[in-house]
């Protein structure tokens, strides 16, 4: 690390402001002050880690996130019961798959982990902790004898239910940063009634195709789908199951748009998951074409700020690296090695156009930040 570190320090030295560090959520997490100092949580560990990084005198260095990882292990030893979360699950309704809203509380740390699942786990856990504290805060104001039961139930509901329930509870800064709203429009093909339902998301999972762009994948996410045969839709106007058309479009655009490329797909013919290394290009700037008619500020401009890259040939092995844009520079984080890379080099992470090569380093989760 020594040689690399000094090289990086040289490269970023004059361009980086003193005491600046390259982490996304850092400021929010650093600003976090737990109500009760006594209890260690995943969030306090993360805050300590970020605090530790921020207080380093050197601009470049390595810190092992031991406490955070240990806490993660501990939480999951306790939380993980018999049910295992498969790497990817097709939703039963056959629609677009979004784990973002559902809480993944099972997280086996002896298995090769999925970065997308981890992101969801982390965001949901932090949100739950913050919501729990908010409830406790309210509790303090009230009389403890009457409110304890109701508050307990609200904590658990925030943790276990998905979708719109976040709106009912107090939004946290996790929601402030990542949450957007999808409008799910369903049109009954019998009576033509359109019913729409809003649901929140922390990221969007999109299907990938060969030689396409993320823009096209997002259009595909919002394309119209016909519900028929066993997937028929119960129309409340017709009071019966009917064929229907359904589409999901973005109504509220999040501050940070996290896009998960569904590169791990269950292949029927092989009876196992395979990695799709398709070339999916993603620009440095993005606007959404798949917004609903009533979306506010639907032409919001996004800038690419980070990409989680999966390196390897399949879902059960491989390695993750991350590229992050910081102060106008692109930095590549590969375990304890950090390098400055040229913006043009990101092309290498779009994926492969031929199927001959098995292993790829391809963009897996994209983070776009709204400008202004």
């Amino acid at each position: 690390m020594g040689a690399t570190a000094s090289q990086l320090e040289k490269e970023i030295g004059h361009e980086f402001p003193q005491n600046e560090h390259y982490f996304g959520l850092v400021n929010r997490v650093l600003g976090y002050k737990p109500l009760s100092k006594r209890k260690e949580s995943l969030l306090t560990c993360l805050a300590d880690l970020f605090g530790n990084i921020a207080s380093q005198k050197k601009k470049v260095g390595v810190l092992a996130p031991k406490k955070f990882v240990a806490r993660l292990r501990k939480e999951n030893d306790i939380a993980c019961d018999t049910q295992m979360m498969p790497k990817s699950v097709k939703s039963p309704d056959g629609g677009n798959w979004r784990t973002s809203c559902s809480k993944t509380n099972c997280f086996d740390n002896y298995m090769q982990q999925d970065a997308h699942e981890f992101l969801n786990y982390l965001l949901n856990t932090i949100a739950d902790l913050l919501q729990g504290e908010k409830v406790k805060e309210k509790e303090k104001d009230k009389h403890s004898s009457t409110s304890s039961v109701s508050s307990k139930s609200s904590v658990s509901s925030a943790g276990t239910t998905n979708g719109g329930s976040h709106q009912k509870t107090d939004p946290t800064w996790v929601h402030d940063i990542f949450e957007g709203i999808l409008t799910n429009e369903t049109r009954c093909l019998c009576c033509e009634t359109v019913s729409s339902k809003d649901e929140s998301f922390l990221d969007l999972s999109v299907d990938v195709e060969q030689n396409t762009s993320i823009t096209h994948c997002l259009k595909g996410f919002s394309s119209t789908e016909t519900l028929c045969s066993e997937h028929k839709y119960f129309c409340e106007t017709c009071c019966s199951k009917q064929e229907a058309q359904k589409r999901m479009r973005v109504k509220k655009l999040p501050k940070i748009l996290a896009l998960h490329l569904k590169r791990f797909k269950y292949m029927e013919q092989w009876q196992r998951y395979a990695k799709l290394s398709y070339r999916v290009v993603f620009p440095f700037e993005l606007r959404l074409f798949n917004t609903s008619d009533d979306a506010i500020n639907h032409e919001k401009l996004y800038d690419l700020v980070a990409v989680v890259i999966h390196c390897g040939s399949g879902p059960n092995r491989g390695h993750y690296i991350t590229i992050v844009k910081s102060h106008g520079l692109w930095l590549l984080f590969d375990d304890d090695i950090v390098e400055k890379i040229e913006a043009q080099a990101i092309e290498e992470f779009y994926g492969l156009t031929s199927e001959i090569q098995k292993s790829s380093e391809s963009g897996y989760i994209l983070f776009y930040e709204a400008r202004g």
Partner: protein
Amino acid sequence: MASSRGATGQEIKQHFATKEGCYRLLDLSVYSRPTKIPYSVQQCHPVRVSFVTVKDQGGCNDRIAFNVGRELYFYIYKGVRKAADLTKPLDKRLYKGTIPTCHDFNLLTRSSDSLELLIGFSAGQVQLLDPVRHEVNKLFNEERLVDKTKVMCLKWIPGSENLFLVAHESGHMFVYNKEHPAGVGPPQYAPMKQGPGYSIHSGKSKTTRNPVCKWTIGEGSINEFAFSPDCKHIATANQDGFLRVFDFDSQTLCGVMKSYFGGLTCVCWSPDGKYIVTGGEDDLVTVWSFLERRVIARGIGHTSWVQVVAFDPYTTSISAGGRVDDSDEEEIEQNGIAPSSGSSSVTPDDKNLTSYRFGSVGQDTNLMLWDLGDDVLKPQRPRGRSMRNATLSNSHVTSTNCLSNGPVTHEVSHSGSGNAVAPMSFDTPKSLTQVHSLSKSVENLVNIGNVAPGTALCPKMEEVSILEPLVAKKVANERLTALSFREDCIVMACHEGFIRTWARPGKVGVQPTGTVV
């Protein structure tokens, strides 16, 4: 036509139909490396194609040059007439250490026994090659003291035998004179001109040397540039997402446009110099009116980044029954341009019909053809009509499937007499260059970071007409990298290194036996 359905199917199309007839892929007219090498290199540079027509005694007087991987090939191009003979390249070059990225023939100095081919390289160098005499005449930026980054685009400056322009990934563009020496040491510059988002420096050296001058444009790579048909203007497509149009001689910025989002990859002019089409990382083709300095239409169809845009001068009609000549190719015979089949016979109603045809190819492996007609160029609706009403009205959906919910604020200023412009001449009407010489869009460019949609620089989606492709076909396995409209064919290249020829409707095709029918 069976192939006219299923635009994005996985099957590669062999033919497609338009209103003028059926275009067919010529299986025997595929140009590539003489020996097939398995395609594996991911980071190889796009395959580009340059054509030149020379006057000689033989029947075939077209030549083709293309780069693939580290190699550059130069063949006789037999087009739709005869099968390609890949065993006999006229010249072949293999480069080590640096890779060819683009090339251009000098059209003023060409002859049957000498050609000047400029070649740009991945490490910034430029070579002047005579592929007929097999001689390397000169090297420019050999020591990489001018610019170390990849050459993105290079062209001979129209009308000059000696000057050429080289654009780099660094965002710099250099004018060279082929007669000037390289000079000693890194070049020194003196500022000449500065404007919003660009600056121009001249070479400061006391002795004549290259480069003659340096343009710095925007932020990031200059992906492509194109000279206007009258040679007076230059349009640049930048990675920063801006299209910039300059008066080349006075070096003043006279128009700016911002992509909907992402970098602009390619740019071209309409044969009459009135419109510029760009393609980019927003998967869109964007039509910008040079006359009005504004976006008039966006084309939605590509499912990945657009790689090349080009007008088809042979199917573009600008005045009553008239066809446009291509300014570069003086040999074009007018009688060969009229379509031999199809439904485009000129009826009285068509007399004042203006229709531009352009094509685009992209990383999605698709070819798209687009028609730009009067419905988009000259909206008939009264001014000030609300956008919402317009989009709801079915009457504005035209026969070419162009959803015309478009421009309501401007009437085309030259309406009436404007659509009777004579076939393309080298003298552009003065009004072209004088309509607001420094428009508001240029002033806005000072605030480059603030590109809110809804400005003249970058209108909202609902503020411009939306075009749909009249043809959208998957034509290759790999990303497409080149597109060229020729008199009797369309030529396309893909990343794998195959250059394919599609015969126009009714044009003689190469038969499987190899004989000409």
